C-alpha cells in the first residue's frame, strides 16, 4: 500500500510540469479548428470581452485606425509606470520637487520610466481626442450607441483631469502656477457674481476653489488633494467607465457599420460563400452543425471572421505600435522639470501643456467665459449630439451621409477664416477693455472673442440646418468648426504667444529679460 502511494507520488511529481501547464492553459496548444478558436476566446478572462467572430469591416485599419485601443494601451502604460513612480514620489511641498529630481537623476531607470509615463499620458490625450473625432465623423454615436458616446465623453473629461492633476505633482514652476490658475478658474463664477453683486449670498466659485485647495492658498492641502485624485480617484473612475465602455461595445453589436446587404457574395474573408434561396421541401438546420461550413440562408453573407487570430493580431499590433512610439519618444526627449515652485514670480510666459493652451487663449479674454462657460457648453453640446441627430444614416462610414464631405470642407475653411480673423483682429485692435476702460465686467463676460466664435459657429450650423435640411450635416458643421478652432487656438497660443501673453511671430523674437 505504502509502496503504491510512494509510486503515485513520484509519478505525480514527474508529471508536475505537464499537469500545472494543463491546469493553467486548458487547450494546451494553439487552436486549430474554429471550435477551438472560439473556445480560446471565451474561455479566457482577458479575451472573453471580445465576440468570437468579428465583422471584416471593423478590422479594416482605415475605419478606426486603432485609436480607441491605442488610448487603452497608453492608459495601461501610464498605470504601470505610474505605480513605479509612486515608489519614490513624496506628495509634500517640501519633498515633491526633490523626489522628482531623485527619480530623474538617481533612481535606476527612473528617468526613463518618468519619460514613458509622461509621453504615454500625452499620447493618451491626443489619441482620445482623435478617437472622438473618428467616432463622430463615422456617425458611430447613433442608436443604439448613444449611451456609449456619453460614457466616452466622461472618459475624455477624466483623461484631461488626470493629466491636469498629474502635472501639478512635481511642484515645479509649471505645477504651482497651474494649480493657482486652475483653482482660480474654479473660482471664476465670482467674476459673474461679483459683477451682479451677489457673491456675499451665493458664492459657488469660492466653494469650488476651497474644495480643490482645501485652504485659501496653494499649499500642502492642495497638493495632497491633487495627489489622491491623480493616483486613486480618477484612475478608479476611468477604469470603471472603461469597463462600461467596452461592455457597451459588445452589447451594442460591435463597432458601428452599415447593414450587410441581402444576398450576394461575402466581400472578404478568404472564404467566399454564395447565398442561396432555400427550397421549401428541405430542412437546413442540421447543416449548421457542420464545422465552419454554414451556408447563409435567407440572409446576406455574414462577412465575419474568427476573432482568434484576426482581431487579436490587429489588437496586438496596435499595442506594439503604441509601446514602440512611447519608448522612442521617451528615449530621445526627457519629460520637463522646471525650477522649484516660486510663489513670488511666475514664468513669463507661463504656459499650460499643449492640450490646455486653447483654453488658456480663451481664458485670456475672460476667465469665466473661457475657462468654465465655453468648456461646459462644448461638453454639453457634444453630449446632446446623439439625441438631436437620430436618423439612421451613414453609420460606420467616414463622411457617410450625402454631401457630408463638402460640408466638412466648407466648415473647415469657414472656421479657419473666422478664427484666424478673430485672432488677427484681437491682436491688432485689442478688445472692449482697451477701448472703454470703465466698461462693466458683464459686457466682457458676454462679448469676447471666445463667445463670439461660439455664436458665429452656432449661426453657421443653423444656416447649414436650414439650407441642407439635415440635422447630421448641421452637427458635422458645428463639430468641424469647434475642432478647427481648438486646433488653431492651440497652435496660436503655442507659437505666437510670448512674454506677458503678447503676440510674436516666432519665439525667437521674444525679448530677453
Amino acid at each position, binding site marked *: 500500500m505504502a509502496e503504491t502511494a510512494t509510486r503515485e507520488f513520484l509519478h505525480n511529481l514527474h508529471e508536475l510540469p505537464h499537469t500545472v501547464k494543463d491546469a493553467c492553459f486548458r487547450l494546451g496548444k494553439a487552436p486549430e479548428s474554429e471550435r477551438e478558436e472560439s473556445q480560446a476566446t471565451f474561455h479566457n478572462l482577458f479575451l472573453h470581452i471580445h465576440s468570437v467572430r468579428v465583422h471584416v469591416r471593423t478590422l479594416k485599419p482605415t475605419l478606426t485606425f486603432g485609436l480607441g485601443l491605442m488610448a487603452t494601451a497608453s492608459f495601461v502604460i501610464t498605470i504601470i509606470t505610474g505605480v513605479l513612480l509612486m515608489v519614490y514620489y513624496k506628495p509634500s511641498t517640501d519633498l515633491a520637487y526633490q523626489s522628482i529630481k531623485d527619480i530623474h537623476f538617481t533612481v535606476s531607470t527612473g528617468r526613463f520610466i518618468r519619460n514613458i509615463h509622461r509621453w504615454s499620458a500625452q499620447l493618451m490625450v491626443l489619441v482620445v481626442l482623435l478617437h472622438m473625432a473618428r467616432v463622430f465623423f463615422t456617425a458611430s454615436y447613433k442608436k443604439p450607441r448613444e449611451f456609449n458616446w456619453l460614457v466616452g465623453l466622461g472618459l475624455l473629461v477624466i483623461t484631461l483631469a488626470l493629466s491636469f492633476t498629474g502635472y501639478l505633482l512635481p511642484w515645479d514652476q509649471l505645477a504651482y502656477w497651474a494649480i*493657482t490658475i486652475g483653482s482660480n478658474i474654479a473660482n471664476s463664477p465670482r467674476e459673474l457674481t461679483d459683477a451682479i453683486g451677489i457673491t456675499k449670498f451665493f458664492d459657488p466659485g469660492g466653494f469650488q476653489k476651497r474644495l480643490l485647495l482645501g*485652504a*485659501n492658498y496653494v499649499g500642502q492641502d492642495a497638493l495632497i488633494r491633487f495627489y489622491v485624485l491623480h493616483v486613486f480617484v480618477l484612475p478608479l473612475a476611468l477604469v470603471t467607465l472603461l469597463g462600461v465602455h467596452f461592455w457597451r461595445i459588445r452589447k451594442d453589436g460591435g463597432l458601428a457599420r452599415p447593414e450587410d446587404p441581402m444576398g450576394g457574395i461575402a466581400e472578404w474573408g478568404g472564404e467566399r460563400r454564395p447565398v442561396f434561396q432555400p427550397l421549401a421541401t428541405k430542412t437546413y438546420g442540421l447543416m449548421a452543425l457542420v464545422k465552419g461550413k454554414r451556408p447563409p440562408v435567407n440572409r446576406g453573407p455574414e462577412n465575419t471572421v474568427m476573432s482568434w487570430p484576426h482581431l487579436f493580431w490587429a489588437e496586438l499590433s496596435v499595442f506594439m505600435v503604441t509601446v514602440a512610439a512611447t519608448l522612442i519618444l521617451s528615449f530621445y526627449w526627457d519629460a520637463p522639470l522646471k525650477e522649484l515652485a516660486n*510663489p513670488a*514670480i511666475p514664468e*513669463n510666459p507661463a504656459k499650460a501643456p499643449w492640450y490646455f493652451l486653447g483654453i488658456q487663449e480663451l*481664458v485670456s479674454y475672460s476667465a469665466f467665459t473661457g475657462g468654465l462657460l465655453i468648456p461646459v457648453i462644448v461638453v454639453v453640446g457634444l453630449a446632446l449630439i446623439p439625441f438631436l441627430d437620430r436618423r439612421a444614416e451613414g453609420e460606420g462610414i467616414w463622411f457617410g451621409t450625402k454631401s457630408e464631405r463638402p460640408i466638412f470642407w466648407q466648415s473647415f475653411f469657414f472656421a479657419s477664416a473666422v478664427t484666424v480673423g478673430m485672432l488677427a483682429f484681437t491682436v491688432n485692435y485689442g478688445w472692449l*477693455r482697451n477701448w472703454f*476702460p470703465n466698461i462693466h465686467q458683464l459686457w466682457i463676460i458676454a462679448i469676447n472673442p471666445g463667445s463670439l466664435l461660439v455664436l458665429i459657429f452656432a449661426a453657421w450650423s443653423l444656416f447649414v440646418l436650414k439650407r441642407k435640411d439635415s440635422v447630421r450635416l448641421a452637427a458635422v458643421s458645428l463639430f468641424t468648426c469647434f475642432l478647427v478652432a481648438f486646433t488653431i487656438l492651440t497652435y496660436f497660443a503655442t507659437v505666437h504667444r510670448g512674454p506677458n*501673453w503678447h503676440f510674436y511671430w516666432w519665439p525667437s523674437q521674444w525679448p530677453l529679460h
Partner: protein
Amino acid sequence: MSRLDPPRINRRSFLSLASLGSFFAALGTAAAGMLRLPNPAVLPGPVRRFKLGSPEQFSPGSETAFAEQNLVLFRDDEGFYAISSTCTHLGCAVSRSKDGFACPCHGSRFDSKGSVIGGPAPRPLPWLEVSRAANGDLVVNADNEVPEGTRYRV
C-alpha cells in the same frame, strides 16, 4: 390605462415602495452629508500681515516691490499706499512694466494705480491697508482692502 389614469396599487406595494423610498432618501442624505468632509471647516493659511520696516527707509516718491509678500509699497507726497501684485484675473503675480503692471499669464495690464487698462482682469489691483506696529514699523495687512486713493500718513 394612461398616464392620467394610473392603475391602483395595493397596500403591500405601496408600503414596499414607501420603505424603499425612505431608505434611499436616508442614504442620499447621508451621502450628501459625507460631502461636507472635503469642504474645509478651518482655512489654514499663513498670516498675511507683513512688517515692512521703518517708514524712514522709504523716501518720498519711491516704490518698493515685495515679491514674496506679493505687494508693492509706494510713498508719495501724501503718504504711503500698498498695491497687491496678485492679478485679479487668475492669481498670477504681476510685474512692473513701462505703464504700470503686466501679468505674464494671460496678458492683463494695469496702470501704476492698479486700474485695468487691458486684458481679461475683471477688477483693479486691490489697495491694501497700511498701518504701523507698536515699534513704529510699517505694517501691510494683505487681507484688508481699502478704497483706491487711501494714503497712510506717517
